[in-house]
């Protein structure tokens, strides 16, 4: 547009630049701190001139927090959670948007409400369920008397058991069970032209084929956007993984931060802590940077 607004432009540029500094500052501090030795990092105030210990610190953090294995676990964990969410959310949203059956709205609300109560709050009972994911069904059988019935009839004691502690499944499943994805997918499906479903019907395809052949592939940008958001979100999960994985073989990277944070009883080697932080925060950052283009596009089509 032929618009000359030099003053306003300057204000914008300044605001954006301050924004940029604000956003980058923490990154810079983490990076600089990761280059210092233990003494320099504890000097008050810390020097912003990078030191020369970056690789030593990175190496030390890598070894100390066993990051090789933990990063691998994190990728597996975050990737599966994100993929699971994408798949289940798209299916649930499909049911909500494309079918008319009684209780459909109730279902939507049942799913939607899960957005609102953080895991932190119901962590203990959730943990108990994770110890035996079939416990609810067992309880239902017990309460309804079916267990008793089976036992009296066949003499068999019904005992459903599926422990998920210290397993990838246990790490992953409870985090898949939330609503954000369903919500986003629903928004997207509502923007898909009706004619597409009708064309598919005319072409002879039923709901399953329509979902598999048309809807799912169509939602690729949304899939990428959701996957990115969820990957980042899962990667950064802290409390649940910390709780559910006591076996270091299943540990993930972020919870390793606590092994890097200097405790009151240890050396204040913030340089190593920050080097570890750097390594641990890099993958989601890289994912966001790589996916950025698709990401914004995916959200545009969901929003409107």
């Amino acid at each position, binding site marked *: 547009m032929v618009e000359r607004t030099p003053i306003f432009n300057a204000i914008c540029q300044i605001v954006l630049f301050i924004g940029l500094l604000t956003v980058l500052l923490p990154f810079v501090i983490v990076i600089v701190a990761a280059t210092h030795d233990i003494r320099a990092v504890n000097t008050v105030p810390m020097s912003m001139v990078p030191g020369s210990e970056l690789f030593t610190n990175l190496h030390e953090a890598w070894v100390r927090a066993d990051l090789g294995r933990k990063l691998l676990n994190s990728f597996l964990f975050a990737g599966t959670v994100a993929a699971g969410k994408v798949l289940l959310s798209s299916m649930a949203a499909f049911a909500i948007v494309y079918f008319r059956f009684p209780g459909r709205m109730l279902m939507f609300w049942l799913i939607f409400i899960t957005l609102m109560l953080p895991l932190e709050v119901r962590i203990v009972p959730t943990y108990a369920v994770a110890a035996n994911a079939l416990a609810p069904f067992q309880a239902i059988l017990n309460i309804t008397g079916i267990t008793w019935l089976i036992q009296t009839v066949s003499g068999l004691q019904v005992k459903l058991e599926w422990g998920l502690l210290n397993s990838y499944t246990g790490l992953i499943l409870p985090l898949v069970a939330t609503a954000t994805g369903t919500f986003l997918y629903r928004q997207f499906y509502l923007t898909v032209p009706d004619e597409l479903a*009708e064309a*598919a019907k*005319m072409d002879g395809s039923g709901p399953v084929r329509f979902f598999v052949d048309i809807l799912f592939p169509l939602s690729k940008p949304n899939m990428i956007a959701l996957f990115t958001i969820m990957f980042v979100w899962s990667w950064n999960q802290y409390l649940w993984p910390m709780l559910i994985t006591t076996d270091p073989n299943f540990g993930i990277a972020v919870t390793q931060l606590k092994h890097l944070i200097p405790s009151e009883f240890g050396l204040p080697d913030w340089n190593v802590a920050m080097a570890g932080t750097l390594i641990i925060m890099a993958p989601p950052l890289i994912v966001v940077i790589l996916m950025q283009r698709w990401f914004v596009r995916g959200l545009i089509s969901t929003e409107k």
Partner: protein
Amino acid sequence: MSSIAIKGVKKAYAKNAVVHGVDLEIATGEFIVILGPSGCGKSTLLRMIAGLEDISGGEIWIDGKLVNKMEPRARGCAMVFQNYALYPHMTVAENIGYALKVAGVPKAERMKRVAATAKVVGLEAFLDRRPAALSGGQRQRVAMGRAIVREPKVFLFDEPLSNLDAKLRVAMRAEIRRLHRRLGATSVFVTHDQTEAMTLGDRLVVMNGGRIEQVGTPAEVYNRPATRFVANFVGSPSMNLMEGSIDRHGVFVYDEQRRIPLPGAIDARLVGHKVTLGVRAEAARLVAAGTPGSLPATVDFIEELGAGRVVHTDFDGLSFAVALSDPAAFETGDTVGVMIDPADVHLFSAESGARINALAQLPPVPVAS
């Protein structure tokens, strides 16, 4: 035998009736165009034939089978949508072949049929492209191809040309026409563009407000519109319509200055009744002001059409269009005389809008001032 029979079909959305009992028989191989203004229920009717919409009342028969409860895929119809509804993530070949794939046609056979279809619609060179990389006309052809490939008994078109630009619309019209001649399948084509309707249809079905106003060949509909609505809707510029009444002398009275004699003897029962008189723009002539038998008017503006022109005149606020093929000898603001041949007059009941038939068929009578 008729290919499609529609018997008293009704449609209501949650008590809101939008199609009020439509009856229509379509012969095998016929090209039927459903014409009507936006919201009149054209698409709804078409979609009920396709099976995309439940039928609230009446019956639809296709090829002798009652299809009311049949799934879309079982009815043997193919549909071309207004926005084409192409699958954006599939190539042209995949789009065309999708119905075959769903039907489980083996790949080799499928590819053969897709190739054959692509040839018919002239898309051989584009089979690997995605819809996004095609022009409007090409997309339209893919939609056609998708319909053709299934060799359906019936083609259904829902305004398939309305997203194209003017020039392309004319070209695609010709193409659809040619295709129909070649394949000979029964076709139902919905549009609100009367030129499209006129040029395409073997028969037109003019709808309004959920009802059929007239069914007939394009010439019938144009020359003998069954209702005032049809008269107004079909033809460009629209037929000039005037409200008035018939006096004892068999003269149409618009106001004291403007009286138009009507041809033939007037049914006595019509005298004094309110009627609408219609004259097509090309049926009227412009003459010098004051010419006997002419009605006085002023030239409002002139539309140049290249091959002709339309002079919009003004009868004290009522506008009246006259089409001329010769260059106009008048300018905006001139006073002129409008000459109407009683033989070209259409009369409609002001009350019901129905054509009053007797009149136009009688021999012309000299004009009295």
